[in-house]
């Protein structure tokens, strides 16, 4: 069974068609990219999947389950985590809390447990803590566990955001322009990080990215859209040679 199945997905804003008859089928453990010119509708596709927007038409199936009408936190509970085009961490809480809170859907204790500090509560909080520390350790963020995100360098914030998404234990990880605003050496680090995640977790990663270096070195499959419509879909090599893609998106780098 495929992990994510999108059929005929369309989303309109007033008269504007942001996503038009979008289809994709993602299996387990893949590394895929979604690219296209600015305003092509890439972020909108992600927003539709995570339940932030409801589709105008079409269906989104996650592990065979239609996500229609689900609220975003319910979709996340099904195993979809994401990062945002502009970083959206909770800036006034330290990194550790950021990562704990993203496990809200599987807290496993009630309000009463919380008031009474029952055994179950203590046990669950410990488990949540353990997962958080494990991730911080693995992603080399241990030193900043008690820092506020807004005081961290941009590159580190990006890593924290990815760590937060991973604490959801997702089977589908959506990354929206993870390399934007990173300098050249940080981009290298990011590529390594994504690869490491891909190698160590049973997760399908789907990313939007404008930096071809990142896309080409990571992804096995690339989907290109323009004006909400798919214009190409294939391996990195195919895409790089595709005339429509070059004309609409890649261009040439003579300055």
């Amino acid at each position, binding site marked *: 069974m495929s992990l994510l199945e999108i059929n005929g997905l369309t989303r309109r*804003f007033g008269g504007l068609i942001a996503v038009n008859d979008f289809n994709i089928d993602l299996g387990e453990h893949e590394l895929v990219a979604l*690219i*296209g*010119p*600015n*305003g*092509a509708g890439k*972020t909108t596709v992600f927003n539709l999947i995570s339940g932030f927007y409801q589709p105008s038409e079409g269906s989104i199936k996650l592990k065979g389950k239609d996500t229609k009408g689900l609220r975003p936190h319910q979709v996340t509970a099904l195993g979809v985590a994401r990062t945002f*085009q*502009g970083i959206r961490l909770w800036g006034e809480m330290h990194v550790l809390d950021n990562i704990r809170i993203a496990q809200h859907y599987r807290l496993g204790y009630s309000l009463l447990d919380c008031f009474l500090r029952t055994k179950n509560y203590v046990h669950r909080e410990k488990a949540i803590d353990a997962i958080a520390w494990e991730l911080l350790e693995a992603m080399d963020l241990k030193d900043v566990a008690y820092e506020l995100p807004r005081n961290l*360098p*941009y*590159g580190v914030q990006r890593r924290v955001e990815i760590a937060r998404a991973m604490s959801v234990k997702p089977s589908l990880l959506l990354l929206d*322009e993870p390399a*934007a*605003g*990173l*300098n*050249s*050496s*940080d*981009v*290298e680090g990011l590529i390594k990080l994504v690869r490491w995640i891909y190698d160590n977790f049973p997760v399908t990663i789907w990313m939007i990215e*404008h930096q*071809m270096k990142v896309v080409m070195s990571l992804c096995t499959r690339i989907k290109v859209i323009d004006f909400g419509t798919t214009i190409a879909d294939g391996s990195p090599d195919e895409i790089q040679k595709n005339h429509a893609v070059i004309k*609409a*998106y*890649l*261009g*040439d*780098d*003579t*300055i």
Partner: protein
Amino acid sequence: MKTLLEVKNLKVRYGNIEALHGISFDVKEGEIVTLIGANGAGKSTTLLSICRLPPPEAPRVVEGDILFNGQSLLNVPPHKIVSDLDMALVPEGRRIFGNLTVEENLKLATYARKDGHEAAVRDYERVYALFPRLAERRKQRSESLSGGEQQMLALGRAIMSKCSFLMLDEPSMGLAPLLMYDMFRTLKELNREGLTILLIEQNANLALRFAHRGYVLDTGEIVAHGTSEQLLADPEVKKAYLGG
């Protein structure tokens, strides 16, 4: 060539934290100069201090001087820097006015212009020609634009403000490759028409290819400078900032 901007031993602080420890550099008329450096090196801070935006969000200059055309900027209020000295800044994070439409955003940028309606109309045309996307979205509230579209708008605003000295903070962020190259070509064209540019760019490779000269910033200090060719060839710089 005349020196347009001269920064002398600039020290600035956020609260009690010193972010720049005394940097000096200059930009001559008609040049393109770039500042490169790692995340958090203080590049944006430098531009914000030049614009003299008020704290707390912006830093506070504690020492040194900033001269523009020989005149110190330290006592010039920020809006005057834009309206009287014809400088413009495209800030980090775009900072467009999301509750205004695309058109209103551009119009607001002409607030301090004095060269008449016609000239402004010509510039509207220029912006819309450069970013046809914006023309399509003229009446849309700008906060619903896509990330890249917002970046175009931020640049459009700078062009509309009719500046002779343009400071850009990561203008390529979030732009698709095609558009990014287009943008740099347009900037080059503007430069040939006389616009002086101070550029910050994460993609140091690209920035150095585009600029005449560059400065390398590291944790609040300038560690290297030279012409683009020199920097591109410098093995240290290459290793640290150009991604090997």
